[in-house]
């Protein structure tokens, strides 16, 4: 834990905070430019500058205020449920993002660029969904079985990439990109066949998952958070243990830093590739279960939403450190939840989230740029290194 704290209080954390700040500023500029109020008031800015600044403030503050009310606490709501609903929405979004982000973090730390989060989430959701829909068992067997199926589904799809890399040297970036599309198309196909399509439906949707396979909605049905949240926290702890305390994780990291040295030291590289990608995919598969057995309750084409990409940004923002991934996952979960309210209340398109999110990652990846923007001096330690 001490190391974790250090990671956040050190120089890197400063860059991260500034990167987030800079991205919100750029987002604010976009919001202001697109506001019709701002556009009209600027035409007579010479005559009545106050109008312009008022409009500017209203558009930007209004948007971010709506985001806050959508993501954390709605102080304008009339009853308690509506007031705390935003934070639960944030957690509901953060759950799959963080899980998949952990999966990618495991791969990144092992030197494998897994950008197949989307495909692995879909495979997890398909496996878990199938078991959840068509198997009839008591809760205490059915639910764990369905979750396990999702983990295995994602894990197998990930492990296949590891196997291809081990056996043929295929570049995992290319393979995972292609697998994402293959998974989407496969899901699209299966949702048109009796294998997954709801009987009698003309739409590509599955029947609902049986109650006995669902996550526990511990706050009742009016909230979308569920037991997946607990699974997410367990996944964070598991990943931290795996990467920092286990001998398997030690070998993962050795592979990540220097595959040649790992090989010479007798580590089975091929097997390790398969294991890394298997575990990475399994965590994304878990994210798939959280969607299909929890939040969504049935399978659709949009089951993976943009979580595959969110997971990449979360893993990068969290610097592939499990606790960092958790913090980043909560942040991006909040962005997602807040953007919904922002669009409904302030007419700011939800796509602003994509802009802010990608800017954050770009800034984080280039600390010198962030330092240049904020005119922060480089810390001494960095100079020596």
């Amino acid at each position, binding site marked *: 834990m001490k190391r974790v704290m250090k990671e956040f209080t050190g120089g890197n954390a400063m860059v991260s905070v500034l990167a987030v700040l800079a991205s919100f500023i750029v987002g604010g500029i976009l919001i202001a430019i697109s506001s019709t109020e701002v556009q009209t008031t600027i035409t007579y800015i010479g005559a009545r500058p106050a109008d312009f600044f008022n409009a500017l403030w209203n558009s930007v503050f209004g948007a971010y205020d709506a985001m806050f009310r959508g993501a954390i606490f709605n102080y304008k709501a009339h009853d308690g449920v509506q007031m705390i609903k935003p934070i639960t929405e944030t957690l509901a979004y953060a759950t799959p993002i963080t899980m998949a982000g952990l999966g990618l973090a495991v791969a990144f730390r092992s030197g494998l660029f897994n950008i197949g989060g989307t495909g692995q989430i879909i495979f997890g959701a398909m496996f878990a969904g199938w078991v959840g829909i068509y198997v009839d068992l008591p809760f205490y067997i059915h639910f764990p079985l369905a979750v396990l199926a999702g983990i295995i589904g994602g894990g197998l799809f990930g492990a296949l990439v590891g196997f291809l890399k081990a056996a*043929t040297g295929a570049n995992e*970036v290319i393979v995972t*990109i292609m697998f994402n599309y293959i998974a989407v*198309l496969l899901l699209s196909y299966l949702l048109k066949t009796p294998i997954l399509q709801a009987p009698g439906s003309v739409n590509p949707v599955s029947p609902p998952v049986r109650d006995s396979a669902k996550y526990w909605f511990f706050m009742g049905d009016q909230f979308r958070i569920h037991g997946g949240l607990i699974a997410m926290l367990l996944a964070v702890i598991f990943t931290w243990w795996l990467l920092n305390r286990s001998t398997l994780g030690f070998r993962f990291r050795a592979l990540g830093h220097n595959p040649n040295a790992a090989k010479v030291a007798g580590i089975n590289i091929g097997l390790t590739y398969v294991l890394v990608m298997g575990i990475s995919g399994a965590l994304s598969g878990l994210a798939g279960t959280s969607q299909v057995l929890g939040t969504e309750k049935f399978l659709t084409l949009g089951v993976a939403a943009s979580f595959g990409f969110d997971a990449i940004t979360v893993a990068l923002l969290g610097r592939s450190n499990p606790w960092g991934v958790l913090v980043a996952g909560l942040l991006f979960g909040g962005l997602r939840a807040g953007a919904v309210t922002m669009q409904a209340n302030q007419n700011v398109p939800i*796509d*602003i989230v*994509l*802009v802010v999110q*990608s800017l954050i990652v770009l800034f984080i990846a280039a600390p010198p740029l962030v330092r240049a923007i904020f005119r922060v001096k480089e810390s001494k330690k960095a100079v020596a290194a």
Partner: protein
Amino acid sequence: MKQSKRTTISLLVLSLIGLWLFVSAPAGTTEISISTDSDIFKLPSFGLGVGFVSGIAFAAQVLAVIASGYFVLGRNHKTPRWVVILFAVALVFEILVGLFAGKTMTFTSLLQGSLALAVPLIFGSLAGVLSERVGVVNIAIEGQLLAGAFVSALIASLSDNMFAGLIGAVIAGALVAWVLAVFAIKYVVDQIIVGVVLNVLVVGLTNFMFSTLMVSNLPFYNQPPRFDKILIPLLGQIPVLGPVLFNQTLIVYLMYVAVAVVYVALFKTRWGLRVRAVGEYPKAADTVGINVFRTRYVSVILGGALAGLGGSFFTLGQVGAFGKEMTNGAGYIALAALIFGRWNPLYAAFAALLFGFAENLQYGLAIIGSSVPSEFLLMLPYALTVVAVAGLVGKVTGPAASGKAYIKS
């Protein structure tokens, strides 16, 4: 040795598909129509017995497998490319005839549709070639295409001038490439990360501006004029290929020029030699006085400009308006084409045509009411790329320094 055997085994496995198609071939015939009305002389359409054609095609596959085995085992040589091509052509033909059994296959319209789908892919893959040959992985092709599509629609609408739109598209694509280059070269950020993130950034920006700006006044902001088709005399009247290749919009003709120019520039000029040197071994290029950074910037940005041009095809060449995320993954297929085409502009263009053909086939099949699920045809480019990078049919290796930042000490 291992590698060359793998090709033979892959062909052998694939020929099982051919065998299955042959054995299960229905008794009917497939009508093949290859003429259009504008041809100088008309070729009659003709019918082929499905079983007969399958038999011949399968026999050709068997011959190819035997030839491959002979070269690998008998002569300790790798399988010649012509054997692989013979095999591929035979198998594709067998599949096509099987798919259209009892129906009419209108060849020309099939090809026309394929080319239309392939144009942005070809521009995109050229962008990838220029970028990766100089040592910068370009995952951002998708973003460059989308930026080109958006800006060309916007500017052409505002100015009511298609050419202004084209120029806007070129600048937009170049701008995305410039950001990629700055982050990859100056800030030494992992090129894959930058590429993936840039794609999303462009999606976010174009969606945002579409929803806020364009939607507010569609006729004003999003109704660009479109390029008309220009029929080239004589060439356009060649049977089968004429109407496909030479009755097209300006953008398509620019694409032909771009493929040729990129090919010659890369392999026959001083500039190209330097680009490839930088992409293979930047330090060696540096030690002979080549400015590695400048070479990388120029090549990456030129590539982006081409991709931007390709993006304009969506709006000015086809649809006539911008739509959210209208590139729909074309950039990733272009990436696949570039890998499948082994970082060579000509091969990449052919790969893009092949992928365009596969994508278009689903429409052709939908018209005749075929039961083959379109998803599997759409999967083809992705599956073939996995096959290619896994080295199942010959090993593909990119430029040695691709993806690696050059750090001057």
